[in-house]
């Protein structure tokens, strides 16, 4: 992840410039060492993809042409022999990750904007009423085998009727910060706890091993993160700008898409990259929800550790083609993740 924090960077730069030569040598040596530590696994993956199985098992060998003779056999196997069995999961990953990220960004930033700009005061009593009625509807469908359409329609009707009747008398309510915290709290739950109910739900709906199942799941899982991160960006935008646009005649959606989002490019780029990487690398939920047709690339990587033992060379090829697009995207988005976007908006 490369989320630049420009202020901190500037401070760091000033300090580096002011260092004495002795300190500079120590600092740069440490940095160089750390760079090696970070980059070595990538190098190892790259050379492993070029090794014959025998070189892997008798190794370690570090330098191609010196220690071992590189070969393209693993690449040939993945791209020629497996061919569609590689490309299909790859395309699945592309489709699922990009669509779920787009949807999560769209819904999440709108929710974050609403939380940043409007005041909500849902009454605690109404929330409890809703939960109670949901429980009743579920019980009605499960135990008294009421048709689910009738049950949910009556539940909804009851909710509005009772809600209208008692809303005026309820005092205690929650605020925006409570809603925001509730959103974030959804990520406290270990995903594996939710995996089985999600599996059962899609099984009942007949949607297992389909793109929509994965897209919907990833979107939902990533939504709290989008809301959380984008909220901070939106709160930072001066209200004057939006009020000015309001007076200039722009409606809420126009302000959001025409003023707020362009000014949040940095936040959008950083957040969508983070969310995309999370969807791209997701393994556990994909394992539950997909088998053959909608299988994603992390599953294919894991599958190389099968009955014949870990096929490091094939795995390495897959890892390389898996990280390349994300790296390219991170580099492409880097220029947006910069400061100064709001410069000149207000004052000097």
């Amino acid at each position, binding site marked *: 992840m490369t989320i630049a924090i420009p202020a901190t960077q500037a401070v760091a730069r000033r300090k580096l410039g002011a260092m004495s030569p002795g300190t500079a040598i120590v600092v740069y040596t440490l940095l160089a060492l750390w760079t090696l530590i970070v980059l070595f696994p990538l190098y190892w993956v790259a050379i492993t993809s070029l090794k014959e199985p025998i070189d892997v098992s008798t190794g370690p060998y570090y330098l191609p042409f010196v220690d071992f003779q590189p070969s393209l056999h693993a690449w040939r196997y993945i791209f020629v022999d497996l061919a569609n069995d590689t490309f299909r999961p790859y395309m699945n990953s592309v489709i699922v990750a990009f669509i779920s990220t787009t949807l999560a960004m769209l819904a999440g930033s709108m929710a974050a904007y609403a939380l940043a700009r409007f005041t909500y005061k849902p009454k605690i009593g109404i929330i409890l009423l809703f939960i109670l009625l949901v429980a009743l509807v579920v019980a009605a469908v499960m135990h008294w085998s009421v048709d689910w359409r009738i049950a949910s329609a009556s539940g909804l009707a009851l909710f509005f009727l009772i809600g209208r009747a008692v809303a005026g008398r309820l005092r205690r309510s929650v605020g925006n910060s409570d809603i925001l915290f509730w959103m974030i709290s959804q990520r406290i739950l270990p995903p594996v706890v939710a995996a089985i109910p999600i599996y059962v739900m899609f099984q009942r709906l007949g949607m297992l091993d389909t793109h929509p199942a994965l897209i919907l799941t990833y979107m939902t899982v990533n939504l709290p993160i989008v809301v959380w991160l984008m909220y901070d960006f939106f709160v930072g935008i001066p209200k*004057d700008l939006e009020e*000015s646009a309001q007076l200039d*005649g*722009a409606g809420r959606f126009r302000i959001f898409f025409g*003023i707020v989002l362009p000014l949040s490019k940095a936040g959008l780029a950083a957040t969508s990259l983070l969310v995309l990487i999370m969807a791209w690398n997701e393994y556990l939920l994909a394992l539950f929800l997909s088998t053959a047709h909608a299988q994603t690339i992390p599953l294919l990587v894991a599958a190389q550790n099968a009955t014949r033992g870990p096929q490091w060379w094939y795995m390495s090829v897959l890892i390389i083609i898996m990280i390349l697009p994300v790296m390219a995207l991170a580099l492409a988005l880097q220029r947006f993740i910069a400061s100064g*976007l709001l*410069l*000149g*908006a207000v*004052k000097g």
Partner: protein
Amino acid sequence: MTIRLDRISKSFGALTVLQELSLTVEPGEFLVLLGESGCGKTTALRMIAGLESVTSGRIEINGREVTDVAPKDRDVAMVFQSYALYPHMTVAENIGYPLKIRQAPNSEIQARVREVAAQVQLDPLLGRYPRQLSGGQRQRVALARAIIRRPAVFLMDEPLSNLDAKLRGHMRAELKHMQHDLGVTTIYVTHDQIEAMTLAHRVALLDHGRLQQLGPPAEIYNDPDNLFVAGFIGSPPMNFLKGALKAGRFEAPGIVIGTPIRGEAANAVAGIRPEDCALAAAGAGDLDAEIYSTELIGDHVLVTCQREAQTIAIKAPKDYSADIGAQVGIRLNPQSLYFFDGTDGRRVR
């Protein structure tokens, strides 16, 4: 376009920021809402703009009630203290934005942008971004964006307060000239009394959410309705002496002054402006005091005298000089004395 505020109030929970403000702004008038920060002037302006809801009362613009009308449908343009320029748009795009939203044809937008930019001398800067402009230039962009729509009303919220003193004086003159040229009804919020006095046709002075006085600058200055107005307007501020007003005489320890005012107040405050006091030899004036400091301002010397822990400021001729600590007499012009009831601040006439 006439703007009528009819007893508008604004409360945030238990806190009342504006209390029953009523006033009418005439077509083409430049009205200034003046007051210290927190007096409710900006809230009043935002209520007229529609950015703040009205707790009670009604607002009319041009005979139409707009109390609950959305800001964009009120035909008002506002210049914000922060200018609120869109940082991701060029100067031309910023100025043209209100027209773009109203889906004016591109050719018309461009022509109008050029026309308005020329009016505020921005034409060479149309391709720049706000971050590449100086404070004064940003101010002009904000003005141009307000002008381009030819709105019924201009609302300005301390538009000059972010500029340095020299530029502020220059922009003040420009604003006044521009408002005169365009003839657009303008409501202008400021805490700076010089701005208020120089720009306004009429000034509305607010304190703690209440309208204290509404009138032309000269009237506010020469005929203050109460102690607050008298003390707020004028720099240096009016001198105040505590005493009793009875049977045409103001009496305080060591002072007895006759006055044509017939009103009475046991707990009275007499006010007199520094320019209505004159220095005399000790014992020859209406009261005696000791020189505390003298400051040469340029066209006059500001003499501060001290008397029983009270200071009195006097504008003396520019060649006046005296030693600190010297005893002097102060003569007060009885025609220029104002009297107020010390308990409620009301003017006694």
